[in-house]
């Protein structure tokens, strides 16, 4: 029964999410869908960065791969959009495993640089192969979906992937991930196979980003284009993870809400203004989070809980 409070939390969140479309306007549903999309990406990146201790500044690249998978499959084969998400998951899982290989030799800032290169180079591929991938004219999916569809898809996928993440992290694999994070040498000494678990963490988080990217493109009216996946997107994800902190549903929700809603909020608040509003808020948020709550929203919650008990 130890998990009961956690279960109550999850069910409460799920209940609110089910009720939201009946309460919100169509426009606010589209914003809530945006939050769901980033929830998936941040959830995945949290497995890599938070649990396994491997940094990535390049997860926007996996979103690009997932997004283009959906757009191209829909354009050329009229594939069912839900199916394209599954395909995006699989493709990104494999690419993630491959990208995870350098992580075996590199660590810390060097690994960060490799993933950064990924974030810059992947969006160049459509420009190079513009016949197939549309160049900077982009790829338009054959079917577009409305806000409610994306909302339902995003949060259903979130729920499934949340349960999957929970299943992965609670058992052997999760323990191995945490061991790698805390001390690689100690992990190896205890029989954790470093290559397997490092690449696996990359693969899983990339697959999550792929699904997020697929939904991201559907939310952009089914239009995939290189500049949607600029370096800033990868940084946003990383900031989202920093805000989320480790291992808390509320934390990930907070991170996703921050990243998903900020563009709209920053243009609506007159003080911030249209120009550079986003950059200013992001910069300030990063500094504040690092100064005040280095463990993110999850750390803040834990601290509050301790205070309440004392």
């Amino acid at each position, binding site marked *: 029964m130890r998990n009961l409070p956690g279960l109550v939390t999850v069910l409460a969140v799920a209940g609110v999410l089910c009720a939201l479309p009946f309460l919100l306007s169509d426009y606010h549903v589209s914003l809530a869908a*945006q939050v769901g999309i980033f929830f998936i990406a941040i959830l995945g990146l949290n497995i890599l960065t938070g649990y396994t201790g491997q940094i990535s500044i390049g997860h926007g690249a996996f979103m690009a791969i997932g997004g283009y998978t959906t757009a191209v499959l829909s354009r050329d084969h009229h594939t069912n959009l839900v199916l394209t998400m599954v395909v995006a998951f699989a493709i990104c899982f494999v690419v993630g495993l491959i990208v995870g290989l350098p992580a075996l030799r590199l660590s810390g800032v060097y690994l960060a640089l490799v993933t950064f290169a990924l974030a810059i180079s992947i969006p*160049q591929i459509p*420009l190079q192969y513009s016949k197939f991938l549309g*160049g900077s004219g982009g790829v338009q999916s054959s079917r577009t979906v409305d806000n409610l569809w994306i909302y339902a898809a995003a949060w259903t996928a979130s729920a499934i992937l949340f349960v999957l993440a929970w299943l992965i992290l609670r058992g052997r694999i999760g323990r191995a991930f945490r061991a790698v994070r805390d001390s690689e040498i100690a992990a190896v000494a205890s029989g954790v196979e470093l290559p397997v678990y490092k690449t696996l963490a990359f693969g899983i988080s990339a697959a999550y980003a792929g699904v997020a990217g697929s939904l991201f493109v559907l939310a952009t009216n089914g*239009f995939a284009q290189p*500049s949607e*996946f600029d370096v800033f997107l990868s940084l946003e994800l990383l900031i989202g993870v920093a805000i989320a902190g480790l291992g808390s549903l509320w934390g990930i929700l907070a991170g996703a809400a921050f990243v998903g809603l900020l*563009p*709209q909020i920053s243009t609506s608040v007159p003080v911030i203004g249209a120009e550079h509003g986003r950059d200013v808020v992001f910069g300030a948020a990063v500094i504040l989070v690092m100064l005040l709550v280095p463990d993110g929203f999850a750390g803040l919650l834990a601290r509050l809980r301790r205070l309440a008990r004392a």
Partner: protein
Amino acid sequence: MAFNRRKLGALLGALLVTAAVAGVAGASPQGTPGVSSKQILIGGTFPYTGPAALYKTIPVAEQAWYAYVNAKGGVFGRKINDKTIDDSYNPAQTVPAVKQLVEQDHVFAIVGSLGTAPGLSTWGYLNQRKVPQVLLATGDAYWGNCVHHSCQGSTKPWTMGWQPSYPGEAKLYAKYILKNKPKAKIGVLYQNDAYGKNYLSGLKTGLGSHAGQIVDTESYNVTDPATVVGAHVGAIAAHGADTLVIFATPAASIAALATVPHIPGWNPLTILNNVSANRLFMLTAAKNGATLNGVVSTVYTASSTTQANLPGMKLAKAIIHKYAPALDQSLALGDGNIIYGLASAWTFTDALNHAGKNLTRAGLMHALRSLNEKNNPFIYPGMTVQTSKKRTFPMEQLKIIKWSGGATGDWHATGKIFSGLH
């Protein structure tokens, strides 16, 4: 039990917030969205930041024009309120921004939004909802053609451009080359996207049976650094071209112009597309070592430097000085984008006037398809902004211009006005 009660509190709190948000969102307007007896609310997305930020004077000039119109009482007593959002030239930001304008702010129309990819990412959505997407600041052929013909599976009757189509402009360059340098060996530098390819195909069509005179085509990507663009120009010279045609966006065209003098013994006839021929950009190219004399381009707006005495240019100066003084200096240096913004905003208020007091979205589209502006003060004297049901490019006229006076020089128009370019 304490634990559960706290959870219950959190849940109730969440529901309360939800209900509050829903309450705010509930109100829905009556009649034509964005139009009241006092105001017309319009919206647009522009690159205030990002790779195309050089264009950011356009929306500022448009808002200056609306402020001027509002100060004179507005259109049928309605003040024009233009809400612009920065999309960094990034479709992933354009879409939520446009959704916000349409679904949250309930704008009457999307007016003047800049960029081909941002436009493509939202035209399906806007046409589905029958929201006018008009006077787009991009010259791709789509914006005129897909009104009647099916493009990407459907027609787009709620979408319209404003400036001359890129293929039409390129056909004029072909005409110029065939007349002035019939034996030209042509090298083309173009941007590797729909924009650059639109131009290139127009040039080939215009050259017709002479298309074989193109000895080299080089494409660059919009994110390439200046050195890469320079290398492409070098390749064009190495192919023996004596005519250089540049179909590029400003940053790349500046790099290309600055490379030419570095190639020994090469002195090609250089043709530069209109979008990059802003005098401000030319002065920057000169600072980077370009020798500009003899460069050929086209124009359809009046010039705030060489035609400063036109009534329209005096008006432009007065409006900018009063409502957007930050742009005073760039206007004095000949920033054509400011005049562009004023001219296209003028067309919008003209259409509003013709759409009448009882303003509807369909009425606006009808007015925009029957434009006949001989009196738009900001376009080149003698040109007309004109549309019909079948011809939906508002501007189809151009005049050839040539640069003289070196690093402190300017564009000078030559020859007649060419019409019917599309």
